[in-house]
């Protein structure tokens, strides 16, 4: 399985994501610099977390207009799987590949902690290794993770089953207390309509081995692997 991690100036989870991809899939990804207008054909494109361009203007706004993203959008529209984590999710909404926007957290503070997530769909290339309704624990670390879209858009993504994961309690129930950032519908991650693009605020790459405190994040990478190798 061949994957690419896109590196923007200010990305800071690019190494973590590459390490996780290699540890879980056994294949080392290529690192693609933001200025490159073209890159090798790959099976998965991953957009890492961090502060691309310092989050200046708006988180993800400038990265979405970088040369490499034109190519990423083109390939995503052709069906190539694209996974955006944290800042990568913000970049994906800024390019329009995913609907909605990520606003400043409701309490206006950066938040870094483990959260519980309910896996809403398991028939997708990113989540097939989880059980439907499974509750997993992985961390968030962001200042702008408050998912927002207008009412029509929310209805559409809910009706289409585009919600991938939602913030929940340890027992899987939804409450304001289990929502770390004020996201509408406790939404933590969404697919595009075709299902080949996933954006999520939580960081699965940070919990892929017990030494780090858990391995619930592995499933996302194992799922892609399963899909592509099968």
């Amino acid at each position: 399985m061949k994957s690419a991690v896109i590196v923007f100036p200010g990305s800071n989870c690019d190494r973590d994501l590459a390490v996780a991809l290699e540890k879980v899939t056994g294949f080392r990804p290529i690192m693609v610099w933001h200025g490159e207008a073209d890159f090798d054909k790959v099976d998965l494109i991953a957009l890492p977390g961090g502060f691309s361009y310092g989050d200046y203007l708006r988180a993800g706004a400038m990265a979405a207009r970088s040369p490499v993203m034109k190519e990423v959008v083109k390939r995503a529209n052709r069906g190539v799987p694209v996974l955006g984590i944290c800042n990568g999710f913000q970049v994906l909404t800024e390019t329009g590949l995913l609907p909605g926007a990520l606003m400043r957290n409701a309490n206006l503070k950066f938040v870094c902690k483990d959260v519980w997530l309910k896996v809403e769909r398991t028939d997708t290339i990113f989540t097939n290794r989880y059980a439907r309704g499974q509750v997993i624990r992985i961390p968030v670390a962001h200042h702008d993770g408050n998912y927002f879209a207008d009412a029509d858009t929310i209805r559409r993504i809910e009706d289409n089953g585009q919600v991938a994961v939602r913030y929940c309690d340890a027992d899987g129930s939804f409450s304001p207390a289990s929502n770390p950032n004020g996201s509408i519908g406790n939404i933590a991650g969404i697919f595009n309509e075709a299902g080949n693009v996933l954006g999520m605020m939580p960081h699965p790459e940070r919990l892929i081995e017990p030494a780090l405190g858990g391995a619930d994040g592995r499933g996302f990478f194992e799922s892609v692997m399963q899909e592509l190798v099968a």
Partner: protein
Amino acid sequence: MTDTLSITPELVAEHGLTNEEYELILSVMGREPTITELGIFSVMWSEHCSYKSSKVWLKRLPTKAPWVIQGPGENAGVIDIGDGDAVIFKMESHNHPSYIEPYQGAATGVGGILRDVFTMGGRPIANLNALRFGSPDHPKTRHLVSGVVAGIGGYGNCVGVPTVAGECTFHPAYNGNILVNAMTVGLARKDRIFYSAAAGVGNPVVYVGSKTGRDGIHGATMASAEFTEDSEEKRPTVQVGDPFTEKLLIEACLELMAEDAIVAIQDMGAAGLTSSSVEMASKGGVGFELDLDRVPQREENMTPYEMMLSESQERMLMVLKPGSEAQAEAIFRKWDLDFAVIGRITDTGRLTLKHEGEIVGDIPVAPLVDKAPEYDRPWEPTPPAPALHPGDVPAPRSLGDALRTLMGCPDLASKRWIWEQYDHMVMADTVQRPGGDAAVVRVHGTTKGLALTTDCTPRYCKADPVEGGKQAVAEAWRNITATGAKPLAITDCMNFGNPERPIIMGQFAGAIQGMAEACTALEFPVISGNVSLYNETNGEAILPTPAIGGVGLLKDIDCMVTIALKTAGDWLYMVGESAGHLGQSLYLREVCGREDGPPPPVDLAIERRNGDFVRSAIENRQVVACHDLSDGGLLVAAAEMALAGDLGFDLDADWGSLPDHAALFGEDQGRYLVEVSEGEAFEAAARAAGVPVKRIGFVGGDTLNRGGERLISLAELREIHESWLPNYMENA
């Protein structure tokens, strides 16, 4: 100001120089200095840069061990952790700026200490911070906490270095002078360490990073004076940080360091271009000729004076090997950073500054550095506090209520509200997160781990600077030991009041003496550090605060333990002995409302013996959870272990003649609380090592009990412990 200004006594005084110091400048120069030269002398001879009051004492600290690669004197210290790996670390204060402008002051404190580490070739892998604020009741405290925490997070989160540990306490003595001490730990290959000594006549001097503006001019001088009520007016001297540029600078510098292009490199920290060029020239015994017209500038019409004294952030100065300019420039351009050859190395031994075709400064480097004033200031020892016997301190009406008070008091309450605003997991190597005795960060790509902590108990230092200095070092050593790691070295951040007052100088001298004894006895040398004096407002000094940043090594993170209780039915043992020392304890302060008595004495031989035993018991897997006993004593430590493991306990020990509250809340040193599954084997090992251990209870249930009687439920304890800080910050 222009360079033709004549030097008046007022101008000399405004630069923080005494008449004697100015006379010395005249004799070094052999003529009246230009205003630019006066500015350079002023910052180089400031307390902040010259250590003129502290140098004579700092020399007494032990700085050597077989694993020390570089001790104090470089940008940061370096230790060997085996397998060709080296760890680079340092702690530094940013107290004055953080009080004036908390967000930017704290943020640029983080930026500065990061640069000290990656300047030497280390990739920063962890940040820590030690924070001291005024009384929670003081009207400014909430604003300062909020701004400092946001600033540390705003910078560290963006550069992508995890902030993994620290401490945060409150005391009215910091009402007018908070302390913000930031520490960075970096990782390098032992054979790829970079130093600051310039060499090679003719070699290019290169400026990289951000452009120079008018921010931070005279920051070093500000940090060398007392505060008064109009310190707010100094706000414009606080620099503004840009963590995005810092991140680019880290990547660009490390990329260039992988090539064979750099002769010497130094960050532009306090006193900016002046101190970086003077230190590089001085260490290399060479001269520098700088063409200031080539310095990248953010503002128009900057004078040489302003350029030499600016403390604009995210800048570095390098000496390159001849012919490598193009290669280096390509790397910095790729990262969208300024790159300019601004001068060359000369054989004159002078710092020569050119501006618009004229020489605006020409100072002999050696005397600028070597003739810097050095004072052996008069000092007075702190008089010993009268003894306080356990019987002199009343028992609480109820043990449970005393525990509630302590676990919810500002110093012991959970600091989750702070560390959840810091990205403590980026880089995906944080194997022990904030909240324990020390954080543990894995050495990337290996099974080794670094245990990291910051410690100091300022109330002990105030009561007895010598014992307090010992205790600060011993507690850092103990916290590292409690994870199973071997403590290797420390950095120190010496925060004190006005050294011109003999009682303050006596606190400094005493703390150094205590620290030196502890460092020697525990083989825990000082490899880097920083001194921050004049922490006074309107004559009120802070508590003496020699903050210690400690680093230890775990050979295998699989052998690490945490403070969390693990298994119902396991035994709890106390390692070490209790005399029920309540002088300067938190019980005395928080429950009895008194701050008196001497601090607990530290017996360094016992400290070492007990710690070495605990470490070996962790390595042998006899100990499955471990916590050092410090603030609040045994019952607080046990409560913290219970919360971390979500498991209760019953303490059923009998203390003999010692009153229960003295045994449970006394702060005797050299002690640990450990969870053990096989009690007999553990006791046998302790006997063999000659270490006193006492079985004091067992793990289980969802309540905290004393001799079968319930003190409090875990749920209530958690609520008390977790709610103080968020309530304080958010329900004003």
